[in-house]
Structures are given as structure tokens and as C-alpha cells.
């Protein structure tokens, strides 16, 4: 029997096992689906929070104010220096005239400027930072401050750090809670499969007494686990899609709350693929662990 024939045998037997103990197979499939559903809720919440924090970070801008003595050459030099920095996403020059025009939109400020009789503002450079720029920002700011043409650098350091900390905490909490749900599910699935294998103890004994090799005694059961994982994922995707459409439609009637379910299509497929991989890993590992039961190992 060559390796291909062995593979075909394992695949066929695994399929047959799946339909043999329908009750227990269905239980495992439902457990896999409900675990993945819980994980997807965690992943979804972390993803939404992460997106919110990333977009919050994207809104952070640095403002570099030049001295009144700085001329166009200085402005161009500093602008070019900033554009070459890896932390910088984009750079925009705001001349003192443009800034004044902007200020004058407020009638109170407009009156104050008229009383002063001259433009008190200086040229500035508005810098949009990249979302992962937090690390080396201090070094850039110190360099800019040492430039004689730079009056002040304003970049909301404390807010930036706060958002970064929240983002980190959310990720770690998601990872911890997700890991906890995963391990709990693995425990339940392993025990359910142990029960399912115990119900077929006669087959295990028969295989052992016939002298069946390890690949033949274990292979079909591991493949059965993978199949249950795939079917569990399928069920979970079906449930999530139903939630997306039915609940989405309901939420739409309440002031556009359906936005909560509106991740881009690509994100949903990424999520489904990640959960499918998790489902297969979960049930395969569960089968493997169930096959480590003392009574199975004693049947050499």
C-alpha cells in the first residue's frame, strides 16, 4: 500500500466516521461553531476598537511654527527635512497669510487682529504623522527645536501616548480573553471527542486486535476532527452572515446603527478565513488530545 492509497483510505474512513456517530459529530460541530462565534465576537470587538484607535492616531498632527525671522529658504529646508523623515506621512506649508485668513473667520479674533494692525502669526508647517510613528517622535521633535528657525513644535505628546497605551491594552486583553475562550473550547471539544471515541471503543479494540498500524488507527479520527472543524466553521459563517443581514436590517431602522456591522467585505473574509483556520486547529488538536486517552494508548 503506497502513501497515496493510505491517504485515500484515511480520507474515506474519516468521512464514513463523520456520518456514523451523527449525534456526537453534531455536538462537536455545534461546539466548534459556538466557540468560533465567541472568538469572532472578540475578534470583531478588538478589530472595531483597533480601527477606531488607528483612525484616532491618524488624526494626530504635528505643527511646526517658524520664527518671524525665518525666510522662504528656511521654510523650504525644514519642509524638505520633514518630508524625508520616515515617521511623516505628509507635510503641508501654512503661510502666515493663510493662517491669518483662517483665524479671521472668527469675528472676535478678526477684531483683535484689526486692533493690532499687523499679522502676529508666523509661517508654519502642518505634519501628518504615520500611525506607528510614536516610538521615535521625541528625537525628531528635539532635532527640530534645535533649529534656529523653529519657534515651537506642538504635537500633543500626552494624548498620543494615551491612545497608544489604550491600543496596546485592548490588543492584550483581546489576546488574553480570546486565548481563554480557545482553551475552554479545546477542553470541551477534547472531552466530547473522547466520549465519541469511547462510544466506538469496540472499533478501536478490533483495529488493535487486527494489528492495524498507527496511521490506520489514528488517521481517520484526526481527519474526522478536521472535517468537524470545517463544518463547524461553515455553520458559524452561516450564523454570522445571518446576523449581518437580519440584525443589520433591524439596526438600520434605528438611526443607522447598522454601521456597527459594516466592516469592509475583505475584512469579513479575512475574519472567516482566520476563524476557519482556528476551527480546524481546534478540532484537530481536540482529536489528537482525545486520542491520547489512557485506554486508547493502551491498545497498542
Amino acid at each position, binding site marked *: 500500500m503506497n502513501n497515496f492509497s493510505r491517504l485515500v483510505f484515511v480520507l474515506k474512513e474519516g468521512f464514513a466516521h463523520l456520518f456514523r456517530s451523527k449525534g456526537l459529530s453534531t455536538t462537536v460541530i455545534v461546539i466548534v461553531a459556538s466557540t468560533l462565534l465567541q472568538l469572532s465576537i472578540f475578534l470583531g470587538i478588538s478589530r472595531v476598537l483597533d480601527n477606531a484607535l488607528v483612525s484616532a492616531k491618524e488624526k494626530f498632527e504635528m505643527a511646526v511654527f517658524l520664527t518671524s525671522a525665518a525666510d522662504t529658504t528656511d521654510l523650504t529646508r525644514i519642509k524638505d527635512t520633514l518630508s524625508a523623515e520616515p515617521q511623516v506621512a505628509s507635510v503641508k506649508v501654512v503661510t502666515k497669510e493663510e493662517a491669518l485668513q483662517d483665524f479671521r473667520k472668527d469675528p472676535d479674533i478678526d477684531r483683535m487682529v484689526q486692533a493690532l494692525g499687523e499679522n502676529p502669526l508666523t509661517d508654519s508647517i502642518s505634519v501628518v504623522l504615520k500611525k506607528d510613528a510614536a516610538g521615535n517622535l521625541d528625537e525628531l521633535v528635539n532635532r527640530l527645536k534645535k533649529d534656529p528657525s523653529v519657534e515651537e513644535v506642538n504635537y500633543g505628546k500626552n494624548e498620543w501616548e494615551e491612545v497608544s497605551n489604550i491600543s496596546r491594552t485592548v490588543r492584550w486583553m483581546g489576546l488574553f480573553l480570546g486565548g481563554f475562550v480557545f482553551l475552554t473550547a479545546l477542553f470541551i471539544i477534547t472531552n466530547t471527542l473522547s466520549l465519541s471515541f469511547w462510544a466506538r471503543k469496540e472499533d478501536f479494540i478490533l483495529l488493535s*486486535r487486527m494489528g492495524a498500524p498507527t496511521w490506520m488507527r489514528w488517521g481517520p479520527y484526526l481527519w474526522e476532527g478536521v472535517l468537524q472543524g470545517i463544518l463547524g466553521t461553515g455553520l458559524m459563517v452561516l450564523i454570522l452572515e445571518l446576523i449581518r443581514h437580519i440584525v443589520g436590517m433591524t439596526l438600520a431602522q434605528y438611526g443607522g446603527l447598522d454601521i456597527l456591522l459594516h466592516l469592509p467585505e475583505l475584512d469579513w473574509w479575512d475574519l472567516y478565513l482566520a476563524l476557519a483556520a482556528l476551527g480546524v486547529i481546534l478540532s484537530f488538536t481536540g482529536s489528537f488530545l482525545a486520542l491520547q486517552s489512557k485506554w486508547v494508548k493502551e491498545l497498542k
Partner: protein
Amino acid sequence: MMIQAFHLTKVHSSGVKVLEDAYFSAPEGSFIAILGESRTGKSTFLKMLGGEEKPTSGVLRIDHKDIHGLSASEKRQWLNEVGMIFPDLSLFPDKTVEENILFILHVKEVSTEGQKEAIRKLLSNAGLGDKIQSKPADLSSGEKRMVLALRAMIFRPRLLLVDDPFQGLDDKAVQTLLKFLFELNRTGTTVILSIQQMSFYENLKSMPSVPPIQWMKLDQGKLQPLEEAVP
């Protein structure tokens, strides 16, 4: 396969001695029939020969090897050449008769090419031609026993251990099974058969074209040639 046993003793965990200081020798290709009443330890003895029960003491060698000292993989390899017809070995309930018989060929890693036709012929000769696609639940106990026997013989084992195979079989099925056992023995398989009914001894002695059979009796833990056991 050649079997040699010296000073073989088996005491069950309950303290019952089922075999006491037994000597046993089966040359390659021999046919040995062990007679004994119910619960005299015939099944335990056959299970010892099949590596399923360990003797309490004594030496048991098959092809000069101590089968109870083999590693798990060596034992599996050894079992590839051993067929067993034991009453407590069942069929896979979800497989058809044909699949059950084919399954043993997968287990023994024998090519299944062309075997379906051979199984069809074998089942037809055994009077089970119309049961090829039946599940075990649809078979009578006699038919199940016959399928179990065919499953153990299809891969032409070098050693066939047969424990009380005729229970529940009608005369025709008994004759068919005996014919298969004799045919297999003629091709070189060592057959160890255990039976309860003494009448078999008389019937077989009067049957034509029966291969030479070494008769033994197992009673109260003593295994000895039948001539010595029967006064």
C-alpha cells in the same frame, strides 16, 4: 508458522488455573484441533497464541520468537501473518459485508486490486452471494460467523487461530467452512482449531479428503493428545 510451547501455565486473575505446565508443538503447515468442554480454557490458549493473553509462566515461541516480548510495531508486523476467528471479534457495523472483508486487506496492507471479484466468488461459494452489500445488522448470527471466518482467511495468513467457529452454523455452512479451512491448510497455513463437540471428532475422522489432523484435548488445565486423554 511453527509453534513451540514448554511448561506453559496460565492462571487467571481470579485464581483459576486454565493451563498447567502444557507442552505444545505445531509444525509449519500443520492442522491441530483442540477438543474441550465449555470454559476449559481453549479460548485463553488460542488468545495466548495470538499474543492477546500473556502466559503466567513458561515459554511460548512462534517461529522461534517470543511473541509476548515483541515491541508494538514488531507485534503489528507479526499480526499481519495471523488470522483469527474468535467469537468476540465482531464486524464493523457501518460497513457492508464486502467492505468488512476488504478492510482486513487494508489492515494487512495487502493490495486490494482484483480482490472484489475474489470476495464475490468466495461469498458465493459460502452461500452468501446475495449478502455482499448487506450490513451486519441484516445478517443472521450464522452468516455473521461465516463472514468473520472469510475475513480472517482472505489474506491467506500463515497462522490461523479458530475458536469454536461452528456455533450457530447449519450443516451446510459447517461443511463449507471446513472445506475453506482445509484448503487454506493445504496451501501451507498452520491452523489451530478449538471445538467443543466431541461428535466433530467422529465426523471428521469419517470424512473423505481431510488433511492429517493432530487431535488434542484440553481438560482441567491439562493439554494432551486425544489418544492419551480418552481411555
